[in-house]
Every structure is written in C-alpha cells, then in structure tokens.
C-alpha cells in the first residue's frame, strides 16, 4: 500500500476502470492495482460524445488520455512519468496506437481528428508527420496490390480535396461584413450580434433567389418582351402600379410562349422555366432551412429546466467577443450585480401565494390573453374589410391620378401601423401581468407578436387567394404582386422609421429630457420578428413578382447599415441576460415552421387549385399552373428516350401510395431515434450514479 496516492487521484482512476471498458483502445486500463499511474489519467467519456460522435468515441478517449499526460509544460511531464522496466513505455505505446488509428481513417476524418486534438501545434505536427509516414509505408507496401482503378480513385480524391480547399478560400471573399460584425460583437456582445448574423443569413436566401430568377426567368423574358406603352411617373416607385405593370417586375408580363431566338437552337419553354425555377428554389430553401435548424438544435440542445445554474452562469457565459473597454467594464458590473442579487434572493423560486392571490394571477393572465387575442382578431377584421374596399377601387377602374395612387397605399400603411403599435400594447400587458421571471415575459411577448403577425399575413393570403383570384380583374396575379410590393416597401420604410424613433429619438429623450431612462437597448426580439415577417412576404411574393427578392436584397442591405449606425450611435449594451443560443434556435424554428411552411401551403394552393388569369402571364389559358407540368409530361410520353421521366412522374410524384410509404418510413425512423435518445439518457444517469458511488466508496475506504 506504499504506493497509495492522494484520494483524488483514485477518484479519477477507478471510475475509469469500470466505465470505459467498452472502448477498444483502453488496453492499458486493465490493471486494477493501486500503483500510481498518473500518466494514464484519462478523462471520462463526456456525455455529449455519446450523443454526437459515436465513431470517434474510442479515438477521442485515446487522444484525451494521451493529452492529459503531456502537459503543455514539458517540465512537469518528466517528473510524472513512471517507468516500468518490464513493458514498453506507455507513452510510446499510446502514441503508436494513435498513429495507427489515424492512418486507418479516411483523409477528411483524419484531418478533422488532428484538428480536434487538444495538443500543442508542435505535437500535432509531429503526429501528423508520423501518420503521413505510416500511410506512405502502407501504400508502398500495398501498392503492388492496388489496381489502377483504386489509384485513380485516390488521385481524384486528392484533386477533389484540393479543389474544396481552394473553394473554401474563395468563399472567404464572400464573407460580407466580417469587420462590421467584429466591431458590433466587440461592443455589444454575442446577443446583439445574433440579430445581424440572422439578417445576413436571410440576405443570402434572397441573393440566391434573385440569381436564379434572374438567370432563368428574367433574362429569357427580355428576349420575348413586348413593348411597354405606359408612361412613367415617379410615383410608381411607391405604388408599383402603372408603368411597372408591363415590366418584368410582375407575373403578368411574362409570356407563355416558347422562346426561340437563336436559329436552330433549343427552344426555351417559359411556362416550364417559371414553374420549375420557383419550385426548385423552394425545395432548396426547404432543405437548407431543415439542415440549419437540425444543426442548431443539435448544438444548442434546449433544456429550459437545467439552464439557470449559478455554475454555468459564472464559468460558461463570459463573452470573449467583447473587446471594448467600456463594454467589458459594464459587463463586469452587471455580472457583479447579478451575483449579488442571486446571493440575497436565496429563496426566490419558492414563492408561496395564497389562494386568492393565485386566483387573481390566473384571472389577470386570462384577461391579458383574451385582450391580446382579441386585438389580433380585431386587427385582422380591419385589414380584411380594408382590403375588400381596396379591391373595389381596383376593379372599378384604373385611376392614375394622385388620389387613386394614394388610396392604394392605405392598406400597407395600416398593416404596418398595426404591426408597429400593437406590440407596445402587448408589452404593456406583459408589465401588468408581473411574471415570475423576466425570461418568461420575453417569451410571452414574442409569442403574442407572432400570433399577431401570423394572423395578419394569414388574412391577407386568404384575401388574395379567395377574393382577388376569383374577382373579375384582368390580371389577378399582377394585383397580388403589386399588393405584396407595396407591403414590402412600406414595411421597409417603417423599419427605418422605427429605428429613427425607437432608438435615435429615445436616446435624445433619455439623455436630455428624462435622464433616468438612460440610453435605449437594442430590442432583439422585435427586430428579428420584423425580419421574419419581411422574409415571409418576400417568399409569398416570389411567384407573383420574380424581381421581389432583388428588391428585398437591397432593402435588407440598407437595413443592415442603418441598424448598425443606429446601434453604434444610440444604444447601450444589453443589461439583461439574453439566451442567445436558445433564441437563435427558436427564431430559426419560427422561420421554418409558421413562416416557410405557411408560404409553401399558399404557393401550393396557388399552383394546384387556382385558375390563372386568361389574358396575362405564362400560364394563361391553362386550368391551373400545375397543368403546364402535366401537359409537358403528356408530350414527353410520345418520346421513348424520356420514358423514365414519365415513369418517375406517374409512380413517384403523383402517386399517393409513394408518399404514404415515405411518411411511414420517416415516422418509424424518428421513433427509433427517439427511443435511442431515451435509452442513452437512462444510461448517463446510471453512469453518473456509478461515479458518485465509487468515489464515495473509495473515500470511505481511504479513511479506514
């Protein structure tokens, strides 16, 4: 027992012995002796290793064990290594294992593994060189056996990797606003930065849409353009009507013909181009949103119960992004205040209310919910009746005078006013309700805002699809496109005005007239919801106005700069805790679920159910927009070379059985994954209990 070391040593060693036995690389942990082996002090497999990367589980154990022994300070290492004359130096043995494992991985996996190693650069380089030597040894050894084919494949793999590397370097050029984001993050921290990153992300959607619309729909249309006989007055920029009706801005201008300008060149079917461009864009958007959301959920596993821990607040939330001296001092002061508050209000969670107080609180909550839902319903009703009146104006005749043009703007202005002022009412209600935690208040306010915005967009869609589409106007798609154009424009104007009033004037008031208010803070929630609303409108409008993403692109860029300047000039860094990761995931989810899926349903109804107008647009004369595709398939049936396209269409795309089977398979897979996660949760609980038991047992034994 002379080699017994301090108890803490064993609390790390022994649990390892029990728990890590399933890793195939733990060949040196089989000894149950009490010999001090500090160089083999592994870290336990972290729980999130189990969840995210099962294939590298064994490897990371080896590397971490390897690492803890090799401190970055070589002086410590010498005193700590124990030498055993009867076996190979465990250090060398492990390194050999590590190099062997790395050599047997594929190139990208190997690079990722080396990058992830928590070692000095020198050590990583050494290991990398050893691995490369090992690989060349292996390939030389096996080269006679490798066929031409495998060598060829390897050569192409290397080429692909080089190509990927150079691509990633050029994608660096596309990193817009890197310096600006750095400055914003430096002064205001990660929470405010998340708004600007979200804005940049939405901008890429619009850029992509504009590019493909421009290349596939707008440029061909220029070849088949009809002359524009309308006059241009400056007012059309605001109303979108008049001169713009006969331009590529709206659906109505597009031809339904097959364009063939080049002699003996392939004809360009505008109908198919239109529907396929829009369709493929939405499919790609869907995939991008789905994968981003999944990645975000994976990284920021939302578990609200375990969030508010003092430990994580202290050790894991210092924002290393903040590099502005004043901001750092402010943050330190805030943290100090929070810690002091946390110490004094020890039993804040355990608040007992008497029965009357509880009933009172429930009644207040109910009343405020009824009030907020009632306001939303009233707003919708108002918008609906206003839009019906609007339609009557259109159908009556084209009034090109100032009054007529101004009347067209009433609906968008009213919608934007409702979107701007009702949230103030909601936050006032939130103050009345006196929630227990401020985080809860933010959530409720955001939920109410979402309900308001969804209902307004919903009622507008209902109006467009049911009333405008079946009205007697000449070109209802262009009317819808004009409505959306005006809504987008007025929303943009209100966004700028909101910045001016909400931040600039508020700062003036807060510093001169009413000094107790102080500088305003950047309202992240409201601004992000405004962005989601604007993007929803753009997505709805793509089918009716293909140039709209380009307009939205410009407006988002202007909003970025205006918000940045306003932020720098007028706002102070946030004082309260804003759970950035959680909120970003929620906002991405909001963008996907009510926003994008809602847009998909609207587009779906438009394409499948509604009858396109007779006199304009690429689908004139057809019974539905989708009929263009079914007619094309009928034409393809006559050619034997494209029988497979027809087969796919009939058996996969239009067959309900296929989608039913697909849904069942997806549900089964989801259920299986869910069960695996539940099983792993139970496993981690058991392992944790084991750790505690073993360490307690050991400290118990030590004392006797």
């Amino acid at each position, binding site marked *: 027992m002379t080699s017994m070391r301090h*108890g803490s040593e064993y609390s790390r060693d022994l649990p390892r012995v029990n728990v890590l036995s399933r890793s195939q690389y733990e060949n040196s942990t089989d000894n149950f002796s009490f010999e001090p082996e500090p160089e083999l002090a592994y870290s336990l497999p972290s729980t999130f290793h189990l969840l995210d990367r099962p294939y590298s589980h064994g490897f990371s154990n080896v590397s971490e064990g390897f690492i803890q022994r090799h401190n970055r300070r070589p002086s410590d290492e010498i005193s700590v290594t124990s030498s055993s004359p009867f076996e190979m130096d465990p250090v060398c043995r492990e390194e050999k294992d590590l190099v062997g494992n790395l050599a047997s991985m594929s190139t990208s996996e190997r690079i990722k593994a080396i990058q992830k190693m928590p070692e000095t650069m020198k050590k990583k380089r050494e290991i990398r060189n050893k691995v490369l030597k090992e690989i060349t040894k292996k390939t030389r050894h096996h080269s006679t056996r490798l066929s031409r084919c495998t060598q060829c494949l390897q050569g192409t793999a290397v080429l692909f990797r080089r190509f990927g590397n150079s691509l990633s370097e050029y994608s660096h050029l596309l990193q817009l606003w890197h310096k600006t984001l750095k400055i914003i993050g430096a002064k205001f921290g990660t929470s405010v930065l998340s708004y600007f990153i979200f804005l940049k992300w939405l901008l890429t959607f619009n850029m992509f849409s504009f590019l493909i619309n421009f290349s596939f729909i707008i440029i061909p249309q220029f070849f088949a353009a009809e002359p524009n006989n309308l006059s241009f007055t400056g007012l059309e920029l605001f109303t979108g009507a008049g001169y713009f009706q006969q331009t590529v801005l709206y659906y109505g201008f597009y031809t339904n013909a097959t364009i063939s300008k080049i002699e003996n060149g392939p004809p360009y079917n505008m109908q198919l181009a239109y529907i396929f461009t829009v369709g493929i864009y939405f499919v790609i958007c869907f995939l991008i949103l789905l994968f981003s959301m999944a990645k975000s959920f994976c990284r920021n596993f939302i578990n609200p119960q375990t969030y508010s821990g003092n430990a994580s607040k202290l050790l894991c939330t210092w924002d290393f992004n903040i590099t502005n001296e004043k901001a750092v001092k402010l943050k330190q002061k805030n943290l100090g205040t929070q810690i002091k508050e946390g110490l004094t209000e020890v039993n804040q969670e355990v608040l007992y209310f008497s029965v009357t107080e509880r009933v009172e609180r429930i009644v207040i909550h109910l009343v405020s919910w009824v009030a907020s839902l009632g306001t939303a319903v009233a707003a919708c009703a108002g918008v609906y009746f206003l839009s019906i009146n609007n339609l009557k104006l259109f159908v009556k005749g084209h009034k090109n005078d100032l009054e007529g043009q101004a009347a067209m703007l009433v609906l968008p202005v009213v919608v934007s006013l409702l979107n701007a002022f009702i949230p103030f009412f909601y936050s006032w209600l939130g103050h009345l309700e006196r929630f227990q935690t401020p985080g809860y208040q933010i959530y409720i306010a955001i939920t109410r805002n979402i309900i308001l915005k969804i209902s307004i967009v919903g009622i507008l869609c209902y109006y467009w699809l049911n009333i405008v589409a079946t009205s007697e106007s000449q070109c209802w798609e262009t009317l819808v496109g004009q409505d959306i154009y005006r809504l987008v424009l007025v929303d943009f104007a209100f966004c700028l005005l909101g910045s001016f009033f909400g931040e600039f004037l508020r700062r003036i008031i807060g510093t001169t007239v009413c000094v107790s208010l102080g500088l305003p803070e950047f309202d992240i929630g409201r601004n992000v919801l405004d962005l989601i609303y604007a993007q929803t409108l753009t997505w709805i409008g793509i089918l009716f106005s293909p140039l709209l993403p380009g307009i939205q692109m410009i407006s988002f860029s202007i909003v970025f700069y205006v918000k940045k300047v306003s932020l720098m000039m007028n706002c102070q860094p946030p004082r309260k805790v804003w759970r950035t990761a959680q909120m970003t995931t929620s906002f991405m989810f909001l963008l996907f679920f009510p926003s994008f899926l809602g847009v998909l349903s609207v587009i779906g109804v438009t394409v499948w159910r509604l009858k396109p107008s007779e006199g304009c647009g690429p689908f004139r004369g057809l019974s539905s927009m989708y009929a263009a595709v079914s007619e094309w398939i009928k034409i393809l049936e006559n050619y034997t070379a494209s029988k497979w396209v027809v087969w796919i269409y009939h058996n996969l795309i239009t067959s309900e059985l296929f989608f039913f089977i697909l849904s069942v398979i997806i549900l089964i897979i989801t259920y299986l994954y869910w069960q695996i996660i539940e099983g792993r949760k139970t496993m981690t609980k058991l392992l944790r209990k084991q750790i505690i038991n073993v360490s307690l047992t050991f*400290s118990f034994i030590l004392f006797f």
Partner: protein
Amino acid sequence: MGNKQTIFTPEQLDAYQDCTFFTRKEILRLFYRYRDLAPQLVPLDYTDKPDVTLPYELIGSMPELKDNPFRQRIAEVFSEDGGGNMTLDDFLDMFSVLSEMAPRDLKAYYAFKIYDFNNDDYICKSDLEKTVNKLTRNELTPEEVSLVCEKVIYEADADNDGKLSLEDFQRMIIRAPDFLSTFHIRI
C-alpha cells in the same frame, strides 16, 4: 496553388492547414497580425523554422485581448513555456481554438485550463475565487466571493471531492448552449 508567398514552404502551410481550423489565406493573415506586433523580431521568412517568441506584453496588447480579464491566463495556457510568451505556432493554436469552427469539446478543454489558475487539473475553490474576482472586477466582498464559489462547487461537483474536474466542467457546458458562441474571438 499559385500563391507566390515566400513566408512558408508549401509543406508548412499544409501542416498548418491540417492542424488548425484555418484556411491558407487566414493563416497568412494571422501571420501578418503576429508580425505586426513586433516587426523587428519576426522575420518574413519562416521556411527555416526560426525560433521566435514574442513576450507576453506584446500579445496582451492586441486589441482582441487587451480588455479581456482572462488575457494572461489565455496566453499562459497556449504558450509553450507557460509564461505567456508565444511563438507563431502557439499564436495560431490559440486563435484556432477560439475560432468559431472549433468543436465544443476542444473549447471546453481549453476553457477548463484557462480557469485552472494553479494548473493542477482541477478547478478548486481558490481558482474559482480568482475567476469570480476577474469576472466582477473585484467588486464583491471576500465573503460574497467565498459564498458564490461554495455554491458553484456544490452545484457542479458530481464526485464530491470539493473541486471541479474536467468532467464536471464538461457537464456544465452542456447546460450552457451559449458557450460555443461566447468562447469565441473573431480575428
């Protein structure tokens, strides 16, 4: 691939690319940032692997680090000699771990080392006290600091040895999804 830079050999650049999360352009950009700290000390030719170490005072004066309360610990953790004096390798390593591409495990490992002031592979109470003082700029009284540290250890210590091990820290990280975005320095 056609770059006419003469600072590194292609093998060196490849090695850097494989060992950090940076692309070639970023590595070169970081080299110039490193050199800007002391142009007379850092040569423009690294092909013969010169042994150049910049003292901590220069590293700590970088705009990205100069107001960070943990800048000394960051430099110490990533430097080879443990005193904050960094070679180019250490410099690249530091910003690679602090970049947004680094995975959570790696960041957690290094964050743990940063908060482990006495380098004993555990965050004990004295380490926590120093951390709290740095985080709040010595605003709290010693009793308050002690109380906070006790609370933290009570909450996070799973094997009841009175200090936080790497596993306890990693478990805490899971509950703080913001960690990935806050433990990040943009350069």
